[in-house]
């Protein structure tokens, strides 16, 4: 199967006070048509910067895409002009942000905003865009869409705002939707509603979905494949069930052992990962995880490991074979 999105060796750095923060440092991954891919990692792992790079939304300065390729449907997005990127963004690739209150314009009605991509990309009249917007709001199950379309974002609850964001992202029937922590700000029961809706609608429209999250439960429930990020790199990638049942990178293993879980045995203490994530402006030598890794050997300090095959659908970037060591 050919990939809809191919990211190759992406490096996005930020310049601050004479130092260079390597937010994304050589990331490669694929998204195939119609699938759901998760990017999971903790704060500062580079997952949001990866998403913003794909959409060419990195503020420059201070940010800069240093190198790499981002091929979407066969075209390298990094070589396109700003005007050409604008034709793709919000049209063929849509983004859903974490905080719907700050990503919606407070002074425009929800209806105008949801209809805006249709006006811009499909040159629809305002009337046509409005009608289509009502249909979209109906689709994301906002009650009384005709009335609610006239409301302003502050009149919506958090869950409703995120539904409106989903409606907006679907407006031009994109091939790819990138959702950056779409439900982190929402309550548990509303989070489940919104993610189910997103999954259902992407399945219906055939759009591929990239979910950026820190929640391994969300990954397990919704993603077909997963990329685990640490300090600007993908350290492990593969089918979701394979990664959860057979994790190979010590960081992935550590994350899973440190999670309290509803299906877990509560009599045992959690096994945290000791220490803290590294300073991205001052990365340790070799593998970035090495200072926190209980399996680290000399080689880990000397050279950062590249992703290598565990099996054809599972890659991990680690010098140590956990099966042998453990």
């Amino acid at each position, binding site marked *: 199967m050919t990939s809809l999105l191919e990211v190759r060796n992406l490096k996005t750095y930020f310049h601050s006070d004479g130092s260079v923060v390597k937010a994304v440092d050589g990331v490669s991954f694929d998204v195939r048509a119609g699938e759901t891919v998760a990017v999971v990692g*903790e*704060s500062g792992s580079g997952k949001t910067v990866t998403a913003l790079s794909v959409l060419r939304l990195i503020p420059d300065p201070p940010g800069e895409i240093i190198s790499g390729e981002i091929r979407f449907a066969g075209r390298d997005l990094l070589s396109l002009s700003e005007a050409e990127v604008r034709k793709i963004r919000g049209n063929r690739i849509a983004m859903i942000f974490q905080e719907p209150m700050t990503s919606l314009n407070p002074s425009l009605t929800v209806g105008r905003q949801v209809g805006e991509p249709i006006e811009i990309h499909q040159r629809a009249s305002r009337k046509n865009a409005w009608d289509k917007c009502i249909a979209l709001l109906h689709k994301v199950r906002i009650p009384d869409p005709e009335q609610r379309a006239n409301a302003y974002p502050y009149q919506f*609850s*958090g*869950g*409703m705002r995120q539904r409106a964001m989903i409606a907006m992202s679907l407006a031009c029937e994109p091939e790819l939707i990138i959702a950056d922590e779409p439900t982190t700000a929402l*309550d*548990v*029961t*509303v*989070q*489940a*509603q919104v993610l*189910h809706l997103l999954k259902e609608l992407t399945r219906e429209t055939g759009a591929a979905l990239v979910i950026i999250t*820190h*929640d*391994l*439960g*969300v*990954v*397990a*429930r*919704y993603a077909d494949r997963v990329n685990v990020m640490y300090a600007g790199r993908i350290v492990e990638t593969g089918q*979701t*069930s394979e990664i*959860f*049942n057979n994790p190979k990178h010590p960081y992935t293993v*550590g*994350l*899973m*052992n*440190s*999670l*309290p*879980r*509803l*299906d*877990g045995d*509560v009599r045992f*203490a*959690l*096994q*945290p*990962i*000791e220490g*803290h*994530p590294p300073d991205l402006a001052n990365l340790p030598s070799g593998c970035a995880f090495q200072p926190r890794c209980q399996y680290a050997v000399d080689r880990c300090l000397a050279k950062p490991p590249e992703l290598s095959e565990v099996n054809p659908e599972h890659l991990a970037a680690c010098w140590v074979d956990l099966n042998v060591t453990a």
Partner: protein
Amino acid sequence: MSQPEPVLVVEDLKVEFPVHGGLLGGRRIGTVKAVDGVSFEVNPGETLGVVGESGCGKTTMGLAILRMIDITSGRIVFDGEDISTLERAAMRPVRRKMQMVYQDPFGALDPRMRAKDIIGEPLVAHGISENREAYRERVSELLEMVGLDVVMGERYPHEFSGGQRQRIGIARALALRPTLVVCDEPVSALDVSIQAQIINLLEALQDELGLTYLFIAHDLSVVQHISDRVMVMYLGKVVEIANRSDLYRAPKHPYTQALLSAVPMPSPDAEAAREVVLLEGEVPSPLNPPTGCPFHPRCSMARPDCRETMPVLTEQNTGHKVACHLY
């Protein structure tokens, strides 16, 4: 085994906030019942987990128990003493025994104070230490107790990571040797790998010092891990309270069931085998709560009487109480 005296008894606690409106906001237009008739006990050395979504009143309840906000009515009995109507001065010695750990380790620490002074401040405020030497020793002991090097006491809050800041917050809370610690979302601002460090620390400190915790959080997995008993709140009311295993294995209230079902488990196999119950709608505004059972508009099991009368919290089996007309 005789039942020990509870550390904390809360009886029919109500906290209401006036809502002002009108042209200059001078007119009182309503009342928010943030905590609406909550009763429970906490036994010595145990952890009572409190879960619920935003607006359920869990944080307000924690603050009210510590008398950091005014209560409207009800009784709070701490260590056998009714503290619900104590004056400020009379509360001071009580406060030494009840402390709080806050959610936001960034906002809760004074950025202009060194860690050692932040931790030692309660000792100074309460005039505890006999002399400088005793003070310094106690601060060092506290730093070590929470897993920080004594030299780190010289640093300022911005020099610490989120997890380390939470350790400072915990050390400060423990400075006065409290019996009860109210933890309000102590790990929700932290990354998963750091969260586990802090949970383990809180558990180790409880064993070592015999602490009693009121552990307020929205994360059901964290609460399950740390709690002996768990209380579920919805719109200012307790809807269910039970032992950890009863609550998680055999939840009775439809809201508890839906809440547990909504949490995705970090296991694709378990998720594939699971049937997820999705709730309709969101938590209603506490300004205008539904009549009868506050959960009835979202409840798939609701009957006509749910709309009319609020079900009373009643014991189903030992220690397992639920407020629902179905039982």
